[in-house]
């Protein structure tokens, strides 16, 4: 126990009400802002997914015209990626990283405030395009030219919003790196850091490396669209395929930005509920770093059908297949952590186990997609849609859910309703498979993605998928209720919360006071969650 319990947090008069949240520089409050914002965007993006699944419920066009359907698929992706998943991880980083490394706050608290408060405005701009005469972007979240350049003037707003999101992400990443490298408590050596901190450190470097690439790509779209340049216009000597190379040089590391922190979360939760130290801590760190490195040299596996030289196709196929090795190491390590543990199955553990199984399914279909000749059939079909929803929904989103249940008692000081949590888990896990598993079949049977209507041979599995979608959407409203209920009250949580939990965040009281670790704790192997040194 540190001396923080005795510490009263009113150094200065705290602003109340709205001003408290607008001007806060406290990592916990900013973390809360990020998490609430992310949950709101998850609901908005989810509502768009409901429109998509409702239109695909049966063949024929019933509800929306194709143009609006395309706006929905595009906005669903942009909102979920940049509004829900990424801010959720940044929120978790804000809350947990200073507490996990024994720092009093983030290294750059004012910038922290700014990097959050850019986001609501960015999304206000992005979502406002839905109400503009030329409509929201409808060319897919990848914004491939020339199609994206056919949009109206609202396209400028989309690009501006993406720039803002990029600025926010880069500032958040700089802050995380500065915190981890400079603010660790004495004794918290790099190889004693919890894996969540490690995965975020690596993710932050990925963000700084690739967000400017995205900014460059969309700026070229902007000048092509409004200032008559021809970066991607073949008639003016430009190259539409060049955009795809630049975009995916950002886009592939981006998918790891959305999964590496999830690996970190799962590596925290499984040891806690197995009551056993994480298996292969050091190899987990190296595997994460290898995945991050490989993410820079596999981008063109998104482009096997654009027509590349044979040598390039082979290189990107082999490089992509290699990613299976470090990813496999992680999965084997998680299973080995459970092996001969003493497991209990509270909601965070249930989500973590579901993550390992369902992410593995998504990873295995990823290996299939790496095989270039087979990708000529899989590419741009529902097989791909199924693949990336397995890694992003049952991967990233399930990890975020697991993290929310795991740390919610620490944040609120109350235990969440375990019975409702289990209902949420089983309802989500069953419905998400009803939603996405049949999409593998649809893709293999030949249904392209991003179509608002389909041939009747695809009717049955689309119907099943839509039913799963509605059920999954409804389950998340239950999650919102569980969070509200936990914030408002519930069984008092102890400092340790979970029987098997290790790590500095469990040494401070629940709820964590506004200021923790004003005096740095002394760290040794007894308080860290990972002790790999003893064989």
């Amino acid at each position, binding site marked *: 126990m540190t001396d923080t319990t005795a510490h009263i947090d009113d150094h200065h008069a705290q602003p109340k009400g709205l001003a408290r949240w607008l001007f806060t520089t406290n990592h916990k409050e900013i973390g809360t802002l990020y998490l609430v914002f992310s949950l709101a965007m998850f609901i908005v993006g989810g509502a768009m997914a409901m429109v998509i699944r409702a239109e695909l419920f049966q*063949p*024929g*066009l019933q*509800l929306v015209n*194709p143009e609006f359907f*395309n706006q929905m698929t595009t906005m669903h992706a942009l909102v979920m990626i940049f509004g829900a998943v990424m801010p959720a991880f940044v929120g978790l980083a804000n809350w947990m990283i200073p507490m996990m490394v024994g720092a009093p706050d983030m290294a750059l608290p004012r910038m922290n405030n700014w990097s959050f408060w850019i986001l609501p405005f960015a999304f206000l701009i992005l979502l406002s395009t839905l109400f503009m005469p030329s409509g929201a972007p409808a060319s*897919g979240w990848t914004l*491939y030219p*020339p*199609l994206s*350049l*056919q949009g109206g003037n609202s396209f400028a707003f989309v690009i501006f919003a993406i720039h803002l999101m990029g600025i926010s992400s880069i500032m958040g990443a700089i802050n995380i790196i500065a915190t981890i490298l400079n603010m660790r408590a004495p004794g918290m050596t790099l190889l004693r850091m919890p894996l969540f901190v490690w995965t975020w450190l690596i993710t932050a470097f990925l963000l700084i490396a690739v967000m400017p690439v995205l900014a460059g790509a969309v700026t070229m779209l902007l000048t092509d669209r409004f200032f008559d340049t021809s970066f991607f216009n*073949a*008639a*003016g000597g430009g*190259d*539409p395929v060049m955009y795809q190379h630049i975009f995916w040089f950002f886009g592939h590391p981006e998918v790891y930005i959305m999964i590496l922190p999830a690996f970190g979360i799962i590596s925290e939760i499984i040891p806690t509920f197995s*009551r056993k130290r*994480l*298996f292969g*801590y050091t*190899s987990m760190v190296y595997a994460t770093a290898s995945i991050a490195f490989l993410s820079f040299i596999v981008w063109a596996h998104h482009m096997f*059908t*654009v*027509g590349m030289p*044979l040598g390039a*196709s082979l290189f990107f196929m*082999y490089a992509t297949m*290699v990613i299976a090795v470090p990813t*496999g190491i992680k999965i084997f390590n998680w*299973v*080995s952590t*459970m*092996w*001969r*543990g*003493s497991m209990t*199955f509270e909601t965070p553990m249930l989500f973590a186990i579901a993550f*390992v*199984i369902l992410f*593995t399914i998504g990873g*295995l279909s990823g290996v*299939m997609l790496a095989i*270039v*000749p*087979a990708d*000529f*059939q899989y590419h*741009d079909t529902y097989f791909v849609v199924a693949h990336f929803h397995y890694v992003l929904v049952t991967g990233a989103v399930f990890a975020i859910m697991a993290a929310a249940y795991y740390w919610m008692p620490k944040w609120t000081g109350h235990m969440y309703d375990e019975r409702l949590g289990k209902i949420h888990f089983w309802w989500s896990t069953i419905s998400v498979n009803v939603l996405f598993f*049949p999409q593998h*079949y*649809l893709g*293999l049977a*030949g249904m*392209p993605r991003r*179509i*608002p*209507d389909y*041939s*009747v041979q695809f009717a049955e599995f689309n119907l099943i998928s839509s039913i799963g979608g509605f059920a999954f959407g409804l389950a998340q409203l239950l999650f919102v209720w569980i969070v509200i209920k936990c914030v408002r009250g519930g069984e008092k949580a102890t400092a340790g919360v979970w029987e098997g939990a290790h790590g500095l965040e469990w040494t401070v009281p629940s709820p964590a006071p506004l200021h923790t670790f004003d005096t740095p704790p002394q760290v040794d192997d007894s308080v860290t969650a990972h002790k790999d040194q003893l064989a």
Partner: protein
Amino acid sequence: MKRTNEMIVGLAMVAVITVITWGVFAVGDNMTAGVTPFSRDVYQLHMIVLGIVTVIGILVFAAMFTSIYLHRKSRGAEAAKFTHSTRAEIIWTVIPILILVAMAIPATRVLIDMEDTSGAEMNIKVTGYQWLWQYEYLEDGISFYSALDRDSNAARQIGSDISPREVDNYLLEVDKRMVVPTNTRIRVLLTSGDVIHSWWVPDLGWKRDAIPGMVNEAWTLIEEPGVYRGQCAELCGKDHGFMPVVVEAVSPEDYRAWVAEQTGGQQTAEVGQPLDEMDRDTLMAHGEDIYDAHCAACHREDGSGMQPAFPALAGNAVVTGDVSQHIDVVVNGRPGTAMAAFGQRLEARDIAAALTYTRNAFGNETGDLVQPADVVPLIDAQLDERLVSADRAAN
């Protein structure tokens, strides 16, 4: 005792998960094996890789569920202390690498075969447009457009009371099929006139993007006569879901007969020589065909358009206004919008007829007749401009 338990439960888990997996595979659809040597190679590759990843999945999940079953606190399990095992870690690094190499070898072989487009007996150039395909048979001099058929198009409109189930091959039928001979090595050249499309027929085993400013190549050799259906696979705008690909493979003799029929010149007879003046009835009749095939997807068959992106032509200021401005918009398009430049895509007589039709249909009673000769100067100017800019880009 502990190890024996783990073995027994582990084997039981393998059995249970295998049965579940078998059930999951049995209820679903699988990839087609197709009708070309390449599509069969791809299918085999798919099945090999699917088999390997399924076995890996079953083993990992079986180990996990064994642990979940045996090593739970409620059964009195006590946590072991081990945190790593160098031997295990080496094993599960090396074995996956070997498995990946085993997958990469056949994949490389099939890919090399696909990329070799030499030895083609005929060449077909496929050009994607929003939202139809153009097929040009380079040796036989045939060229035509292929768009969604009328029945599907009527049924797919929002609020249509025609059930998709009552339409044959809903969304997978075209007005004019791409006819090819069987057992002939065909090179397909792909490009686009506007945005990126992707030409895909699952039975041929591949899809390839059609990209403006680039010509992609692929090849096929269809062994079975039949009709093979596919769709555009790259998002290309509003009607991306409504530009099917239909390939009809017939015997080489039937193909020759089809070629003779196509080059019989029926179409030219209807509207005369390319630059001849046409009378009002001919212009209107031909114009309606062109309009329905190339314009109605956005501006609707009744000229009502789709607000706000696709303006109505009925009562439209340009359509009922100055003829030369109208010709300019259709020939050169409107940059920054979905209005394409039709100057290099349609013949002068087609543009003239479509212009005449829109100026006299939907209640636009301008009485104007547009003749091919009115359109030609703008098409020529556009071509000159393109050549100059291509020249500039080349230097």
